[in-house]
């Protein structure tokens, strides 16, 4: 055991560089329910972005902001429902609660990011939990994406109420999702792994009206 010393928090890289079969949370769903390919008639297209790095960051906004700026180069969204992305649009920080943020980064970056944040935060009272294996990101695009969301989430997704750069945790059918709008034409659902199949089947069912397609 390497950490029997008085280490305060034990970090752990759960990812391997080895060539090992990985299964996204929707892998079972594709096999079970299929994945209709998008066609010209598809008014909404679903696409999973699997294997990203997901970190939950807890702590006070002021302290965390400094560290996030330093490490990620973006400022922490201090206002509720805020979602910010880095210049490349591949790393994001989302407000989840007054002391909780979700960081999503390209897969494989999360462990180093955690360590750098920990170093930057040093003695502050904070917590970082790696949840990369526990959730997946599902994108919805297309003219009917918003109406499909209206069938699914209780939150108001009208553009006047849900501009780009917003994200909320809300009720999706009988599950919970994090819903984000990173771009004008794109919505993202952050879905818990064990609910992913339910969410997928719901979207396929509710999306039938719009000839939903699944991009893989």
């Amino acid at each position: 055991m390497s950490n029997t010393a008085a280490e305060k928090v034990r970090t752990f890289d759960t990812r391997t560089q080895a060539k090992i079969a990985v299964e996204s949370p929707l892998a079972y769903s594709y096999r079970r329910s299929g994945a209709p390919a998008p066609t010209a008639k598809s008014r909404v297209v679903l696409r999973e972005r699997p294997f990203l790095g997901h970190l939950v960051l807890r702590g006070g906004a002021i302290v965390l902001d400094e560290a996030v700026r330093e490490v990620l180069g973006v400022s922490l969204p201090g206002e509720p429902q805020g979602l910010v992305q880095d210049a490349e649009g591949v790393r994001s920080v989302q407000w989840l609660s007054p002391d909780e943020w979700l960081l999503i980064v390209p897969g494989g970056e999360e462990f180093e990011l955690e360590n750098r944040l920990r170093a930057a935060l040093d003695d502050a009272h904070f917590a970082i939990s790696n949840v990369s294996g526990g959730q997946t990101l599902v994108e919805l695009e297309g003219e009917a994406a918003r109406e499909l969301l209206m069938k699914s989430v209780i939150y108001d997704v009208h553009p006047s109420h849900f501009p780009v750069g917003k994200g909320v945790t809300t009720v999706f059918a009988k599950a919970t999702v994090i819903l984000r709008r990173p771009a004008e034409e794109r919505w993202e659902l952050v879905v818990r792994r064990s609910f992913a199949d339910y969410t997928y089947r719901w979207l396929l069912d509710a999306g039938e009206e719009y000839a939903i397609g699944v991009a893989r």
Partner: protein
Amino acid sequence: MSQLNRLPQGGRIDRSRKLSFTFNGKSYEGHAGDTLASALLANGVDIVNRSFKYSRPRGIVAAGAEEPNAVVQLGATEAAQVPNVRATQQALYEGLEARSTNGWPNVQRDLMSLVGKLGGKFMPPGFYYKTFMAPASLWMTYEKYIRKSAGLGRSPMERDPDIYDHLHQHCDVLVIGAGPAGLAAALAAARSGARVILADEQEEMGGSLLDSRELLDDRPAEQWVAQVLETLAGMDNVTLLPRTTANGYHDHNFVTLHERRTEHLADTAPRKDGRRQVRARMHRVRAGRVVLATGAHERPLVYAGNDVPGNLLAGAVSTYIRRYGVVPGQKLVLSTSNDHAYRAALDWHEAGREVVAIADARANPDGELVERARARGIRIITGSAVIEAKGESRVSGARVATIDAEGFRVTGQAETLACDTIASSGGYSPVIHLASHTGGRPTWRDDLLGFVPTLVKGVSAAGGAQGVYATAEVLADGVETGSRAASEAGFAAAPVSLPQVAVRRDGAAVALYQVPHEKPTLRAPKQFVDLQNDVTAAGIELATREGFESIEHVKRYTAMGFGTDQGKLGNINGMAIAARCLGRSIPEVGTTVFRPNYTPVTFGAIVGRHCRELFDPERYTAMHQWHVEHGAEFEDVGQWKRPWYFPKTVNGKTETMHEAVARECLAVREAVGILDASTLGKIDIQGPDAREFLGRVYTNKWAKLAPGRVRYGLMCKDDGMVFDDGTTSCLGENHFLMTTTTGGAATVLEWLEIWHQTEWPELEVYFNSVTDHWATMTITGPEARKLLAEVTDMDLDRESFKFMDWREGVVAGVPARVFRISFTGELAFEINVQANYALHVWETLFAHGEKYGLTPYGTETMHVLRAEKGFIIAGQDTDGSVTPEDLGMQWAIGYDKPFPWIGKRALSRPDTARTDRKQLVGLKPKDPKVVLEEGAQIVFDPHHAIPMPMVGHVTSSYYSPTLDSGFALAVVKGGQQKMGETVYLPMADGQVHEAEIVSPIFVDPKGERQNV
């Protein structure tokens, strides 16, 4: 017989499109744009149903949601059956098949009507309560026959082929009703830029303007409607929902709008572009402001024989003529208390049919419409009313007589006028239903002779819904209300121009509800108040005579207003009659309270997509696919699907559960088994006060748990009762990983948060769920170490990796945390890996495990193995009334911990401190072949008479292949002090099992096997 009542022209129907349909098996034709009711009237169908109680023939009375009689069964196939469809609200479509809901052998000649005729007299309200009491034993037999006559339509007996859904809508202003007030309000609100939803229950928007005689800007009103609708349809901020009924108004401006998307097309939703369409959609609307523009319902007059087919509402007559081009008869008598109803006579006259007379209750009617009728030479009998309709299956005459000014007595000789149709109007009742759904009690206004809604914050009413009836005023009211709603929602009003409408001079109406008859009410021919429930004026009088004085009592005793029309026609009349009987005013008798729904809504629409496989989420672990492929039977644990057992099929024979579990158990005890334990809740706890926090929420001590070590913990509520348990590992000095039961994961996380957020915010600690991040597989059994050693280079030595230690390493190429904890009593390693790699690790273990006899096992085997060791399952061996002491877990209670941990104080209450509480013990059946029933009750004296004092029950019981015997865990009063004593379990089949109270640990009491 082909549409004999259809006018050669007029109406909004599409005469180029003929639609054929059947009613009671007979074929008819109608037109696109017809309702089923208008098509039936066009074809001269008088009797559409038989009444509920007296089996009297009934015809169409109204043209909308208030129709009480024309309730039919729809559907061409079994699965497409729809019971209780109001013909007045059902659009006609090609091939529609409808039937009456009552009448045997058919609606024309109903044998039950004999019962009604003869027995009607013996069936006053409350008659069930007064009879069928002797002998008591026969009630169930009586009831069987009473039930046979119950109900209107019938349920389909096959699964619904259609689908339904919900749309979560949010808007600034929701306008309900697209008549003149609603259109004006929507236009005004929309112009201000607010997000507006306009919903209307009818096939077409426009409401009363669609059959209006009035000109708006010198054009027919319907042209103005078309123009406004076109404007609204072109605005981005407006959603138009025709065929959409606001059926429920809920707190804080939450409104359910039921949109019928395909019911006007077919009885089963047709496909569109090869894809399914939803039959109905429920819009769940959260509105900033709500405008009720729901209009008013006309009240019929209550006179003898007013239920005979051919009695209609005056307004309905106009609607059928003007909107559908149908005159529902040849000779009309109109009975009215107001001017507006004169439209019926004028329309009838213009249609070229005979208006026999107008009986006007007023002494000197002189309004504009009255004058117009006079000018056409229509006979007007003032100060009079139709006191009785003659005829049985169709009106054959109207008895008209003069009545006194109060409308209480017949003052003159009745004259019988030959006619086939009687239209009546007793005035108008604002449609206040939605406003009363949230508890607002309406207010009676004598000037309007009706109730107006009492409105809560955020809602307003416009037009007829608040008793404003003149078109010009209605339009102005609509604009004003719409603008105000938008401005309250934060949008500046924009100008809206109103059309010019000539102001009609109307005379004052008089109050008339029940029309007098020469005979007193109890002796007069039946005067119906609630047609659907066969409630008569006499019934109401009788109820008041028997002491039922509040309108709530009267309604319940007579069943008035409990029909599918919810008393839209009858309630005010009924209240007026009750008030008169009691010598009180209408508001003194009570007010009328309506509940959702405004009109009934199919369960399917309310359920939406939350049915069949989407009824409730099924949660899966990362290894689910493997379990399915390997034939697992699943157990529902919360929302999770967990493998229950893995039956093997050999030579076409599949193992029973008993066989599979025995095999799985032996594999673990003798070789090695593997369990998918991913569903256990996992909470990552970080912070300098994490340890202190654990000490407060667990009953046992945490101060000294070192990194690398794991401990079992028990959680109580502050009443001292156990509610969850699990192991918690120390990952670092300030870092712990807590596990919970599968079902308790969310509850425990919220439990930690509520204590942290509300009681101990000063503790520096954070909790995050990592349940889904990790997949957990437990390999357990004597061969577990050897197996694991094949796929890892971790040091698995028993000295360096002890029982209740955890270590990091790489398993099957994947970074893993491995915990040496055991729920089976065998050597065990719980391997946690990031879930995305889980299937690979699982399969790798199998690739190496065959030679060791690696056997997958499910929850059933897990239960047997843990029970053999006396390990509890929270929720199975506990039920919210069991303390840690009751469980014999004194070792897990830190009485001397400094902080008064949750649950501690309650343990010293008199009842929780008793020594004869029910305590967890083992039970060994005297006959080893017996597996006691879980839930079997335990007694000390099996010969005691019933009721027999029970001293406990079996909480867990299994056959143990290891012991080759049944064994059980149980709670028994004072059980911990009764080791070796015999208890009895008297069973339903008469057998009484005997069992010995023993320690709950059946296998390896010293715990040596898990320590190897």
